[in-house]
């Protein structure tokens, strides 16, 4: 029995026992290099390809469209550099609420940033309006890691489809791709690439009860990516290095569990989310819920408590063994409050009064009730 309450599942998730079990033989007995030619190595290669096929299935993709990486950050970097390196002088468009692992690589090219509304939802028309004849890539997240807002990926992809058609008709051969960072979305949303209409998608094992430092980049067939990591030519020569077989198998298992239980988990956790929000706004009516109530990950709760210093609050909660995150990753200590909250138009002061709660598979109703009481108690002490 744990003596603490963990409500920071958006930061890290504990590995599912079934994931650990699926991996363990590949850490010792089946350690062979999948590129080797003897039979036990070939068997390992088969298992790796099984894992790849499993992942492809959940995405409605082909095995060859799955590139294993070492996590979400690498997947995002590979997608952006992999495309943009092949198109010197062309531009990329992203949004104002992306993760740093998208913002940083994007900002090394000619780029434009699409704004969001006050619920942290990308304004599709404004984003589409930024596209010019030299735009090659759009990178937009599926769901935001801080405030949980779910982005209108389908409507963005439909409009991109239209622009592609027009380009073909007008003789512009510049491609236009849509990359989606789905790191936070996998536990709760549909990942079928054709339904979403996307070209590249990043997944992250560490956020779905799988191993950290495992990830996937889905790359639709026909798209040429320039490799970041050169070497022995693994992963279709896009990402060299001996495959992390155990990691890939664990990630595949984690994705299978997440996607096959997705609907039940969404309804279970949505109830906890609304219980949390109701209870805390009842007890502390001045509480502000940031982000969208409608288009929101069911596990995300982002709150501001006007006048309360979030670092102080978290430090008290830490002592009482409730672990959650500051609503703004770098608050009073840093010069820059969260770029996401800024993009939503939330004042620096309110940003420094905010916390992020993210529920997960182990969260129970009693955890929610206890947590709200702990938070309310701590706030009453420091206000």
């Amino acid at each position, binding site marked *: 029995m744990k003596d603490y309450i963990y409500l920071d599942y958006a930061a890290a998730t504990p590995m599912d026992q079934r994931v650990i079990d699926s991996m363990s033989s590949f850490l010792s007995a089946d350690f062979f290099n999948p590129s080797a030619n003897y039979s036990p190595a070939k068997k390992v290669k088969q298992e790796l390809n099984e894992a790849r096929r499993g992942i492809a299935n959940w995405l409605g993709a082909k095995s060859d469209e799955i590139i294993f990486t070492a996590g979400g950050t690498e997947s995002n970097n590979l997608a952006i550099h992999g495309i943009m390196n092949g198109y010197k002088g062309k531009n990329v468009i992203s949004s104002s609420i992306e993760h740093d692992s998208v913002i940083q690589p994007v900002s090394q090219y000619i780029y434009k940033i699409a704004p969001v509304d006050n619920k942290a939802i990308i304004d599709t028309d404004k984003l589409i309006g930024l596209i010019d004849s030299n735009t090659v890539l759009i990178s937009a997240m599926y769901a935001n890691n801080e405030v949980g807002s779910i982005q209108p990926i389908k409507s963005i992809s439909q409009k991109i489809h239209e622009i592609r058609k027009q380009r073909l008709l007008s003789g512009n051969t510049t491609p236009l791709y849509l990359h989606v960072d789905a790191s936070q979305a996998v536990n709760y949303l549909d990942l079928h690439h054709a339904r979403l209409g996307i070209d590249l998608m990043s997944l992250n094992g560490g956020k779905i009860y799988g191993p950290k430092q495992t990830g996937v980049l889905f790359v639709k067939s026909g798209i040429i990516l320039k490799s970041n990591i050169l070497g022995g030519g693994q992963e279709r020569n896009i990402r060299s290095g001996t495959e992390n077989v155990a990691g890939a198998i664990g990630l595949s298992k984690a994705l299978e569990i997440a996607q096959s239980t997705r609907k039940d988990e969404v309804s279970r956790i949505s109830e906890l989310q609304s219980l949390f929000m109701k209870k805390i706004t009842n007890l502390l009516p001045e509480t502000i819920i940031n982000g969208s109530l409608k288009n929101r990950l069911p596990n995300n709760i982002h709150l501001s408590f006007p006048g309360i210093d979030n670092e*102080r609050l978290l*430090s*008290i909660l*830490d002592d009482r063994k409730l672990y959650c995150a500051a609503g703004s990753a*770098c608050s*009073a*200590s*840093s010069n820059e409050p969260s770029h996401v909250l800024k993009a939503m138009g939330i004042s620096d002061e309110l940003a420094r009064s905010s916390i992020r709660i993210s529920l997960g598979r182990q969260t129970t109703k009693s955890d929610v009730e206890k947590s709200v009481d702990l938070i309310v108690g701590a706030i009453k002490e420091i206000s």
Partner: protein
Amino acid sequence: MRETVYVGMSGGVDSSVTAALLLDAGYDVVGVYMKNWSKDLPGHHCTWEEDYQDAKKVATQLGIEFKMYDFENEYRQKVVDYMVAEYQAGRTPNPDIMCNQEIKFKLFLDTALEDGADYIATGHYARVKDGKLLVGIDKNKDQSYFLYRVNEEALKKTIMPIGEMEKPKVREIAKRLGLATAEKKDSQGICFVGKVGIKEFLETELGPQKPGQIIDQNGKVLGDHEGSLYYTIGQRHGLNVGGGLPYYVTGKDVKNNQVFVTTDISDKNLWNQTLTLSDLHWINEAPNSQSEYTIRTRYRADLVAVKSFKKEGDNYLIELKDEVRAITPGQSAVIYEKERVVGGGIVI
């Protein structure tokens, strides 16, 4: 009415306990983190954010108000630029002494007083009594050497509670109170350079240095050095000149970019019985001929008895009763009368 103390909280155990003791003594305590430096260096991560969080955490545990003062610009100008200029001139400065003089006991003090403090407090191992600075009770930890350039008016507004105790006692108090920093390791080296050392820091500031000759006591060229500024007199050195006896730096010629070394520990260039101090600072009053004084020529060095002082213009020529090894230009020599810090100056 209760008096208000602003405690400089670095996120370490010493200043954490300082705040706790003052709270216990009945003061209104405000914790302040001074943000003096935040830049990472090659091979060294600046831990200011972690330290800030730790300081704030302790403040929260103690239930005291907490602030941050951003002194980065001033620290850069008054401490870092000074330090770099001194090294460029071939001397070996002490940035911690400058930090105490310019930042902690001037800027921090003034800002705190303006914000409503009656006193400031720091977690130094030294004692303050009636505007006098005394060595800390813990002889092993005594930090009075770094404080000799603080002035009497500042000391009259300063409290240093842990100067009255030994380090293990400080840890014990932190543990007993369950402070978040109770088990935190002591910081090492110059605060912002950390363990990587001054060489890497100077390289980022000044660029790579020109190699030059290393010359031994017989005038023989032993090989190349990596930049004469990195060498400090008395330093036992890995001179990269291969095997044999250890070498000691006896001097350097910055203009001709030469470093002089010796294998002879008794080399007369390594030992001095006199030294000249400039830029003198006396906390209460200048030394006089009636009293007995001792002097410390670097942090943690043994105290040596002073034979005589002679004023030479703005400088002091000091004769010692014994020879001292490795008196280094740019370093501070601090003069004590028994347990009291009288003041001191910079070795030239």
